[in-house]
C-alpha cells in the first residue's frame, strides 16, 4: 500500500461537515454583520456602531444579561453538584441501581415545555403542592408561587432538566475509576474527603467541565422556561432578543444582532471562565 496522501477521507467529510460549517458561519456572520449595520432588510446598509451604542446603553439589556448569566451559573453549578454525588453513589452496581439510574435519566425524555407545564401545573393555585400544603395545615389558603420574582422556578426547571444530563456525562468517567485505585488511596491513609479531592475529582475533571459548559450554554440561552415560569418583570437574553427583533420595526434586526453577539459571548466566555475556575480551585486544594 502506498503511503501517499489520500483525499478520500476529506471528500467523505464534506456531506456532514460542510452543511454544519456553512450554517454556523452564515448564521454567526449574519448576526455579526447585522449588528454593525450590514444586510439591513429596510433602509440603507453600511457600517455603523450605533446599534451597539443603543443596546449597550439600555438598562433593560444589562438586566437581562446579568439575569441570564446568573441563571446559567446557578443552574450549571446546582445540576452538577446534585448529579456528582449520585453518580458516585451509583459507581458500583447493586440491587436496584439500574432502576434508580433509569429513573434519574427519565427527565431527559421529557420535553422542556412539557416540564415547564408540569411544574407550573404542580405549583399553581389549583396545583398539588398548594392542595398538600393546605391539607397539611401549613397554610390557610393556597399561595401564589407561579412566576416567582426570584426565578426560583426557572432554576428548579433548569436543574430538573439538566441534572440527569450532567449525570449522564459524569457516570461513565466515574465508573471508569478502578476499585483498586480507590483502595490504594484508602490504604495510603486517604479518608472519604481526601479520596474525593485528590483522586476522584482530578480524574473526572474533564467531564465535570464538559457538563458545566454545556449546561451553562443551554441555560444562558433559555427562552421557554423563562417565558413560561420566569418572573414577569424580567427578560432572559434570548427572550429580550426575540422581543427586540419583533417589536422594533426599524432597527429590530440590528439590535437583536447585538444582543445575539453578546449572548454568544456570554455563553462562550462565561462557560470557559467557569470551567477554568473549577480547574483552578481543584489545583489549589488538590495535590
Amino acid at each position, binding site marked *: 500500500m502506498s503511503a501517499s496522501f489520500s483525499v478520500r477521507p476529506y471528500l467523505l467529510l464534506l456531506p456532514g461537515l460542510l452543511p454544519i460549517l456553512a450554517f454556523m458561519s452564515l448564521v454567526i456572520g449574519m448576526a455579526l454583520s447585522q449588528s454593525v449595520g450590514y444586510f439591513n432588510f429596510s433602509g440603507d446598509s453600511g457600517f455603523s456602531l450605533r446599534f451597539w451604542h443603543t443596546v449597550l446603553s439600555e438598562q433593560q439589556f444589562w438586566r437581562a444579561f446579568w439575569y441570564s448569566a446568573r441563571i446559567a451559573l446557578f443552574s450549571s453549578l446546582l445540576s452538577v453538584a446534585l448529579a456528582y454525588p449520585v453518580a458516585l453513589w451509583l459507581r458500583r452496581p447493586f440491587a436496584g441501581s439500574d432502576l434508580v439510574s433509569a429513573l434519574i435519566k427519565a427527565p431527559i425524555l421529557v420535553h422542556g415545555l412539557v416540564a415547564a407545564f408540569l411544574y407550573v401545573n404542580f405549583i399553581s393555585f389549583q396545583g398539588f403542592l398548594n392542595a398538600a400544603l393546605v391539607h397539611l395545615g401549613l397554610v390557610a389558603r393556597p399561595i401564589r408561587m407561579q412566576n416567582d420574582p426570584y426565578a426560583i422556578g426557572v432554576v428548579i426547571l433548569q436543574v430538573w432538566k439538566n441534572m440527569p444530563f450532567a449525570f449522564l456525562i459524569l457516570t461513565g468517567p466515574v465508573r471508569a475509576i478502578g476499585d483498586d*485505585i480507590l483502595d490504594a488511596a484508602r490504604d495510603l491513609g486517604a479518608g472519604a474527603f481526601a479520596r474525593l479531592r485528590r483522586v476522584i475529582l482530578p480524574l473526572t475533571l474533564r467531564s465535570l467541565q464538559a457538563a458545566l459548559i454545556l449546561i451553562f450554554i443551554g441555560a444562558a440561552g433559555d427562552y421557554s422556561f423563562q417565558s413560561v415560569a420566569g418572573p414577569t418583570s424580567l427578560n432572559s437574553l434570548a427572550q429580550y432578543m426575540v422581543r427586540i427583533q419583533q417589536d422594533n420595526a426599524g432597527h429590530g434586526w440590528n439590535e437583536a444582532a447585538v444582543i445575539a453577539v453578546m449572548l454568544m459571548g456570554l455563553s462562550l466566555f462565561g462557560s470557559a471562565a467557569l470551567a477554568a475556575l473549577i480547574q483552578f480551585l481543584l489545583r489549589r486544594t488538590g495535590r
Partner: protein
Amino acid sequence: MPPHALTIDEASLSFGRFQALKSVSFAAEQGQLVTLLGPSGCGKTTLLKAIAGFLALDSGRIEIGGHDMTGIPPERRDTAMCFQSYALFPHLSVSDNIGFGLRQQRIGEAEIRSRVGTVAEQVSLVAQLAKLPGQLSGGQQQRVALARAMAVRPGIMLFDEPLSNLDAKLRDQVRMEIRALQRQHGFTAVYVTHDQSEALAMSDLVVVMRAGEIEQMGRPEDIYRQPKNRFVADFIGTANIMPVRVIGHDAASGLHHIESPLGRLTVRSEIAPVAKTIFACWRPEDAVLVAAGDETGPNRATLRVLSRTFLGSLCDLIVVTEGENPVSFRIQMHGFTPIAEGERITLSLKPEAIRFLGEAAE
C-alpha cells in the same frame, strides 16, 4: 509475651455464595516475612485485601499489634499494600504517586521530597520521577507501586506479587532492597508470590494455600523437607511422588520397609505412615549416581535414561523403571555428567531422603 504483629484468626470470607477464604489462621512476629503461596485463584489477594481492610470478613478476626481490626477502615490501619494491578494514580506523576501517602500524613514538603528520592533510588526510578504512570513500562509501573507502599513505612507491608513483571536481574536487586529495608525499619511483611524459589529464599514462614484454605505452613526448610501431601510436595519444588506399600517396621534401627516402583526400599521417617498403602516422595537432587559394580549404597535401583537436559550447573534427567508398567522419575545431578540418553544407570537414595505423605493411596 508481646502480642504478635499480625494475627489472622479463623478468617472466612465469601463473595456471594462463593467461599474465597475458609477459616484461615496464622500469625507473624514483628519483622517477619510471611509468604503466601498457592495456585491462581486460591485466595491470596483476597487475604491481603482482608488484612488491608478492603474486604470485611464474614467471621473470624484480624489483629494488628494485638488490636482487633474489625470495623477499622483501611485508612486507619497501619498497612500499606503493593497492588497486583499496580493501581497507580494516572493523573499524578511518579513522584506524586510515591509521595501520596506521605502527603496524607501531613509531613513537611522537604521531608517528603527526600523520602521520595530515597525510595526511588532503592527501586531504580530516579530518572522517571517526573513522568506520568501511562508513560512507564510495565516493570517501571510495578516498581512505582512498590515504592509508593514502602514510602509510608507502615508496620505491615502487603506485597501482591511485587516482582512478577521484572527481569531476573532487577528482581534480585529489588528483592534484596526489600530485605534490607525490612531489616532497617523492622516492618512485618505478607508477601504473595508464584515463584516458590523466591518464597523459600525470603521467608520466615511459608503458607501454602489451596481453594481458600491453608494446606500447610511452616519454615521454608520444613515445608520443603516434609511436605504434608502430594499438593504441597508438588507445589514446593519438584518432587517424585510414588505410591508405596508399607511392609514392615524395624524398631531397633527405626527403619520402615516399603514396596515401591523402585523395588524394596528402606525409609527413615520421623512421622509414621498413616496407612498401609500410602504416597511417598523424594526430591530430584537426593538421588546419587552409583558407579557400575559398586554394591555399597542403600536403596539401589537401576533405571533407563529417557531424556537429558543440560542446565549449566545442573543436569536434569528423566529416568524410567524397566518392566511392564514403567514409572518415570526426575533426577538432578550436579555439574556435567557424561550420561547418554538410552543408557542404564543405577541410583541410590538415602533412607532419610524418602518422605511419607499424609495421604493414603487407594
